[in-house]
């Protein structure tokens, strides 16, 4: 009896409170011309130079806008960033006005309705036309531009000049030559990995898939399978044993190359400082990652960060102004000099290329055409569920064949798109 009573009471309580779970108040921005402008930027392993450039920008900004203070907060790039941004969308009181964010996260943030549409602002901005069309696309969802591309990161093939010279090898011109050289190096120098590859290095594997004609949405197509096969073939004892390499992330392959344990690596322009600080310093060169055809370049992923203005910002025009200052040519160039961040403005990039030959292979890669992940909230899901790493690891550890693993991954990708 008693149990029945309690159950009844429970039901009554439930029906009292059974309204939908709460949602955040709908965002309403403002346009105050004074006060504190809050800015979120990403923390970096070596933040001091970034901080210095940003401080300069703040000085210039506050001198031009009396009565305005700029407050910078550095937020982590780890997955914790998602929590920070979600918190900012849910609670306008703790949200910034301007924020730096990774362009792969954009679709999810746009779907959540967190960022303001800047299409008109960027069109009115003289320097706006200088942003490449490919890049602007990576900041656009459903025809609306949600940010100013601030800098990009491009990956290319780093190789050890001393090892290549000793073994009489030439920098590879095709993917086939690349795998052949990698195996030869491993054979003749068993202490070295030929090409550092990782089972969790999504953006190292994708160029192989793209070059073969596949894509993330069609992972089980014959073309994509060819690319997946080419990459996972490298995750074997004759190049990079799965025991050691199956769980490597992109960052770990940088460590391997920098510490001199790998003869080649697929590293970004942003990894230069890390390599220069390691054992490989001064003994390496960079070429674009070759494609399967002689002289072609495998399409690289154009990762990078954008600057956006929050929808619920109370200082909309000030925020846009600050974004345009920090994302303008002068400060993009300064950021390159400080951090090695590749500018998004074509004219700034061209000027730097003329000055610094290190950039050439990366810019050649950009010129050959870059690719991007699907601009859809589904990508965040695919990324978080580790769909592509799981596929690579299953093949590398022989838990599944290329056919099985790619079928499974394609199903997961489809499911991610289906529910969003």
């Amino acid at each position, binding site marked *: 009896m008693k149990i029945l009573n309690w159950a009844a009471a429970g039901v009554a309580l439930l029906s009292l409170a059974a309204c939908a779970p709460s949602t955040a108040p709908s965002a309403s921005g403002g346009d105050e011309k004074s006060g504190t402008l809050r800015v979120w930027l990403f923390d970096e392993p070596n933040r001091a130079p970034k901080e210095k450039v940003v401080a300069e920008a703040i000085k210039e900004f506050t001198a031009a806008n009396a009565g305005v203070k700029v407050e910078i907060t550095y937020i982590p790039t780890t997955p914790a960033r998602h929590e920070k941004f979600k918190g900012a969308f849910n609670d306008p009181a703790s949200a910034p006005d301007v924020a730096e964010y990774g362009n792969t996260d954009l679709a999810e943030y746009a*779907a959540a309705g967190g960022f303001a549409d800047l299409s008109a602002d960027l069109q009115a901005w003289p320097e706006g036309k200088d942003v490449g069309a490919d890049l602007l696309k990576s900041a656009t969802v459903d025809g609306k531009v949600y940010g100013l591309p601030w800098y990009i990161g491009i990956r290319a093939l780093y190789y050890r000049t001393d090892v290549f010279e000793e073994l009489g090898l030439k920098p590879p011109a095709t993917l086939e030559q690349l795998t052949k050289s990698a195996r030869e190096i491993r054979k003749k120098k068993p202490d070295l990995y030929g090409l550092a590859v990782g089972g969790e290095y999504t953006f190292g594997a994708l160029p192989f898939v793209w070059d073969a004609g596949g894509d993330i949405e069609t992972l089980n197509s014959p073309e994509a399978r060819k690319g997946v096969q080419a990459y996972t073939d490298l995750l074997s004892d004759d190049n990079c044993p799965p025991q050691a390499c199956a*769980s490597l992330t992109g960052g770990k392959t940088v460590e391997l190359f920098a510490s001199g344990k790998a003869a080649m690596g697929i590293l970004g322009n942003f990894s230069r400082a890390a390599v220069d600080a390691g054992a490989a310093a001064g003994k390496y060169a960079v070429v674009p990652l070759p494609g399967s055809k002689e002289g072609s370049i495998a399409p690289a992923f154009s990762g990078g960060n954008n600057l956006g203005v929050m929808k619920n910002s109370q200082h909309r025009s000030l925020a846009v102004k600050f974004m345009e200052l920090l994302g303008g040519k002068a400060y993009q160039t300064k950021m390159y000099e400080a951090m090695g961040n590749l500018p998004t403005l074509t004219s700034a990039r061209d000027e730097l290329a003329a000055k610094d030959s290190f950039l050439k292979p990366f810019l050649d890669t950009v010129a050959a055409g870059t690719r991007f992940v699907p601009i859809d909230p589904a990508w965040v899901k695919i990324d978080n569920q580790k769909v592509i790493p799981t596929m690579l690891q299953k093949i590398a550890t022989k838990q599944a064949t290329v056919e099985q693993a790619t079928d499974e991954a394609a199903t997961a990708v489809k499911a991610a798109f289906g529910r969003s």
Partner: protein
Amino acid sequence: MTTVTTAPADPGIRVRRAASRKGGGLRPWLYLLPSAAVLLPLFGYPIYMLGLLSVFDYRQAQVSGGQPTSFVGFGNYATLLGDGRFWSVLAQTLGFAAALVVATLAVGAALAVVLTKAGRIPRLLLSLAAMAAWAAPAITGSTVWLFLFDADLGLVNQVLGIEGFNWFYDRWVTFGVVGATVVWHSFPFVMVTLYAGIQAIPGSVLEAASLDGASAWHTFWRVIVPMLRPLITIVVIQSIIWDFKIFTQIYVMTNGGGIAGQNSVLNVYAYQTAFGSSEYGLGSAIGVIMTLILLVITLFYIRALYRSGEKL
């Protein structure tokens, strides 16, 4: 033996009976009121919210107001139960938790007996070591063990002379190392509880057993274990709950589920679903299912225990 096992339980039963005879049905509830006032808001509300979220299509877009929230009934549960990955992770979690409970109890009980037999100094050292393991936060302990088993620089590989061996490559080896870490974290509670229990057993009982010619092995299984039954119940239920909900060690040591997710457990899976993929509704459904499983296991265990208690 019958008298031995029921004797400690007897006074409690008598008190309970007396209370219900005198104060009617109300008084026990009155006594429960203070703890209920604390526990209900602290546990009731989150569980209520968990259940509520689990019947809604509730993702990031809904939380921040970009899209309207919609009621999907048992849709999230249907998605989950139709997902092969959920079932394999569930089976894996149950197996891993069962092995951990057995291992923790075996290690804890063995060391509790060792404590009673050891001299003063060894006992002190063992207690200190156990307390240190107990006091170490799960994330710290996991990180330290991770370093110990590091492929290139780890102490274990250097001592064994197998540098480069990756302990986190094979599924079962990984579970072994992570399991050892979990047991290391949780055996002190078992050990201390059982040690206290053994200390409370009257010396005369053990003396009588040895006079009857019982070996140490027999004394343990036939005298100590039955007398410790109430304590063992608590320890087992605690261990089941802890080990079923295991999260930190797996998350830290296998980088969120190991190679191709082969070492994932239910709690890590729920976290990745709810917070990684921002599927709060679906994640809540996993939480509800976990709660139900734990309730069922615990209820069955308590019932089984009372039954066998009556028989004895």
